[in-house]
């Protein structure tokens, strides 16, 4: 079996990556619920629905990317040593972990941005009636 090391690599890589993605997106959107409730000013049904949609998108993007970078290509006459396997796996898993971290920070940035925007529009709404009353007086 000349390719057995590569298959072992896949068998190590896939569970780690999928469990990591599921855990991160579970945590992200468990905490993101509070941001969503803030953004939609306590309208719970629409906040939870948006949260769920974001979560599905997060799953799709990340698992898709994980599968896309799965392929291990190794061209050499000698069989792959376990050291090479560890190094290739570390490159893939480490790279995916950094990628996931960056995705998480991007999502966090969107949450903050949405929260700020909704606060700004809230201020505008509360200010306008005050000016109207003054004009009438």
């Amino acid at each position: 079996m000349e390719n057995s090391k590569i298959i072992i690599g896949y068998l190590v890589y896939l569970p780690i990556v999928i469990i990591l993605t599921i855990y991160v997106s579970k945590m992200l959107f468990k905490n993101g619920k509070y941001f969503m409730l803030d953004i939609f000013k306590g309208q719970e049904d629409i906040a939870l629905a948006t949260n769920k949609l974001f979560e599905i998108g997060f799953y799709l993007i990340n698992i898709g990317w994980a599968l896309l970078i799965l392929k291990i290509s190794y061209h050499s006459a000698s069989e792959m040593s376990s050291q090479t396997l560890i190094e290739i796996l570390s490159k893939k898993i480490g790279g995916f972990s950094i990628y996931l971290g960056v995705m998480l920070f991007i999502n966090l940035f969107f949450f903050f941005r949405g929260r700020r925007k909704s606060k700004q529009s809230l201020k505008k709404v509360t200010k306008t009636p005050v000016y109207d009353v003054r004009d009438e007086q």
Partner: protein
Amino acid sequence: MNYNILTYSIYLPIIAVIMVKVGWMFYTHGEIFLMHLYKNDDTIVKPINNLLLIGYYLTNLGYAIITLAFWEQVNNLPQMLNTLSEHLGIIIIGLAVLHYNNVLCLNYLVKSKHSKK
């Protein structure tokens, strides 16, 4: 079992313990700063802090793991100790620089918040 694999199996637990401990300390002590920044709004501080912790773990452990791929060949015991200390040192110094940077940023934010009032 060659020296490279031995080095990896020493390196990974050490770096994991250091990173998890440091991250946990940032998590518990940074919460007080965040509480200051968000006017003790508990519902929003906890999620922010959790997400920052997870992001910290992902990026840092990812970096620590990815350095394995670019490790030089290790042939004997002294060389193993040398490379081990070198790689651990780089990562710990990097953590320290990031940490001071973070403290400065938080300090700046808290100060600017106070001066606004």
